[in-house]
């Protein structure tokens, strides 16, 4: 939902870098998450085998995507789950709104769902007089402070407990100020259990959808997912269309990779499989279950043989935990629903590479993300591809906004560079000028200033490598 806003990654990341509290919070959190994950993948052979299996399952599921979606719909319908399709986030929002309005629902409790963040659902429903309350503790915290998630797994990771303590004491009725995590958690519990009890409807995301049995899998620790999906009379699940696999057996390796990569746990507290509303003879559970399948440009990503790998993602967040850029600037600086390396490839494809091609440069291409990705998404290669998409309207490409990031000055400079490289005499002359003239250039010169503001100006060698080689009698230089 950031497509309409002015986004400026350079400005936002510069601001984030200048915020020592934010940097401390992220550094500590990412170090913790990396250590926890490493502890769960101690056997490199096991890691290699399991991730090869995970990648194969995701690749095979994508290869059969249209067929699996068909089957998912048929089996969900047979189970009593009503399936709806949305091409855009706007359509998805209206679908959810209509489901709620038709049932006279005024309050919605939400389990954690990144797709609902894509939709900007909370704000949309608020505009239509429906209260959508986040119940995941992290999401609840940021909703109280009117913020968006800064991490896809740990949405409130940018806040420390003092900040949360202050927030609770200001925003929760009758709350006493405390920095004790157990007490803060108990406060949220008291508020939210009452909300679960009263809510007219519940909404959740979907971690995996199983085509063969028409099953929605929810992975969580808190129990708010179960509360949101089992207590209110109506459960609405929203999912990106890529989440489907063929069988429940396929989910087993993905679930293991997800929990270990995301939070360094062998298993989460709850792994909840929903295959229908309250059945005959059942005394609880929702009377209705609805599944909204969202496209939001995924079907275009799907048609590109290389970019399709983006859709393998199981949203574990390991790529951001290990990213030197994300760790330093945090999630909000990306001004996108999905931050970090996965966001840097997903956001430009969802919102258009023209408006968001800055994100493809939010990486040093160090490939730490590629090494830890449990489903082997070649993130660095895709970043390079998208950088190219931004400046070249490649034939047969479906990437939105392709070629629109082309700048006349940049193109001219690169043409000049290519021309100089193709003409040895010009190249030699420029190398001579650069080595001799470098000293004359003031450290505060434009462009150079970005470097020298916090560093000393590098010294140039008096003679270039080519000159030195020639002096030593190396032939053909």
């Amino acid at each position, binding site marked *: 939902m950031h497509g309409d806003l002015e986004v400026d990654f350079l400005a936002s990341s510069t601001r984030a870098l200048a915020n020592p509290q934010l940097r401390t919070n992220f550094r500590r*959190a990412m170090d*913790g998450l990396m250590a926890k994950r490493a502890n769960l993948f101690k056997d490199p052979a096991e890691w290699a085998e399991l991730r*090869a*299996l995970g990648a*194969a399952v995701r*690749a*095979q599921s*994508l*290869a059969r*995507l249209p067929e699996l*979606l068909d089957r998912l719909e048929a089996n969900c319908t047979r189970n009593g789950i009503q399936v709806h*399709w949305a*091409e855009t986030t706007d359509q998805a929002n209206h*679908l959810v709104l209509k489901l709620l309005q038709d049932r006279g629902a005024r309050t919605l409790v939400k389990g954690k769902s990144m797709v609902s963040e894509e939709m900007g659902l909370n704000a949309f429903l608020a505009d239509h007089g429906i209260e959508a309350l986040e119940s*995941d*503790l*992290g999401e609840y*915290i940021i909703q109280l402070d009117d913020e968006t998630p800064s991490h896809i797994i740990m949405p409130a990771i940018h806040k420390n*407990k003092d900040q949360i303590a202050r927030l609770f004491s200001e925003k929760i009725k009758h709350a006493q100020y405390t920095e004790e*995590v*157990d007490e803060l*958690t108990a406060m*949220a519990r008291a508020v*939210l*259990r009452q909300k679960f*009890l009263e809510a007219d409807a519940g909404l959740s995301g979907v971690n995996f959808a199983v085509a*063969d*049995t028409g099953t929605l899998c929810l992975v969580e*620790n808190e*129990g708010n997912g*179960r*509360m949101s999906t*089992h207590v209110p009379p109506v459960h609405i699940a929203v999912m990106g*269309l890529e989440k489907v696999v063929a*069988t*429940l057996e396929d989910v*087993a*390796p993905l*679930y293991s990779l997800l929990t270990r990569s995301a939070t360094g*746990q*062998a*298993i989460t*507290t*709850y*792994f*909840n499989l929903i*295959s*229908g509303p*309250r*059945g005959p*003879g059942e*005394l*609880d*559970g929702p009377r209705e279950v609805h599944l909204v*399948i969202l*496209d939001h440009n995924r*079907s275009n990503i*799907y*048609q590109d*043989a290389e970019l399709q790998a983006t859709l393998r993602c199981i949203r574990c967040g390991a790529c951001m935990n290990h990213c030197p850029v994300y760790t330093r600037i945090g999630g909000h600086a990306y001004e996108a629903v999905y931050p970090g390396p996965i966001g840097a490839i997903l956001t430009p494809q969802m919102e258009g590479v023209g408006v968001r091609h800055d994100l493809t440069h939010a990486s040093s291409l160090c490939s730490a993300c590629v090494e830890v990705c449990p489903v082997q998404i070649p993130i660095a290669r895709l970043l390079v591809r998208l950088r190219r998409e931004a400046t070249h309207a490649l034939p047969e490409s479906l990437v939105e906004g392709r070629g629109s990031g082309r700048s006349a000055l940049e193109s001219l400079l690169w043409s000049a560079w290519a021309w100089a490289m193709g003409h040895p005499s010009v190249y030699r002359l420029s190398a001579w000028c650069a080595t001799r003239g470098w000293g004359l250039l003031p450290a505060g010169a434009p462009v150079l200033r970005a470097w020298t503001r916090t560093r000393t100006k590098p010294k140039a060698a008096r003679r270039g490598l080519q000159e030195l080689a020639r002096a030593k009698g190396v032939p053909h230089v």
Partner: protein
Amino acid sequence: MSEARAAILGRLRRAAPMADAPAPDFTTLQVRRWEPAERLVKLRQGMALVKAEFLEAGPEDWPRVVADFVVREGLTSLLYGPDTAEGRALAAAWPAAGPRLVPYDRPVEAFKTELFQDLQAGFTTTLGGIAETGGLLLTPGPAEPRLLSLVPPVHIALLRADRIFDTLWQAIRSLGWNQRLPPNALVISGPSKTADIEQTLAYGVHGPKRLIVCVVAS
């Protein structure tokens, strides 16, 4: 929204057929096996790590072990499913002057507030457990409703020691879950928890604050 459906599936079908993706090789999961006695040890290790607590009992005396626990902990009520064999055994052995044993025998709408605010513990059976990671397999349904293991602050679950599967993958295959699933099935590995505040682990955020596993020796 059948228009959206047609448009989406149309675009997906327009993609060039993929080069055959290699078939997933599940050997790495297949080879994870343990001796029966070892399975219980592993399950207990995995679950103790996330603060699950254990009671030990025999095939005959487990109802008394459960009742003793409820009394010892000063819990004033226990909600249970009256229509299972285990539910009947529990009721038969329940001490006359003991805590309230409350059958979950009405639609939740009839006692939602009491369920959320008064009832202190819930008792369920399980289909078994998972050795590799720890975890209990449950299929809530008419006999044992979904909220029994979720809303009361203490969840007491009965686990038969000879019903522990090696891995989740193996459990899925053995239970036929690839073919058929009830409206709700789940794995529970411990009490409800969160690490959303500074990654500090806190238990009992929305669901049960304690998970008690009563292991019935075979």
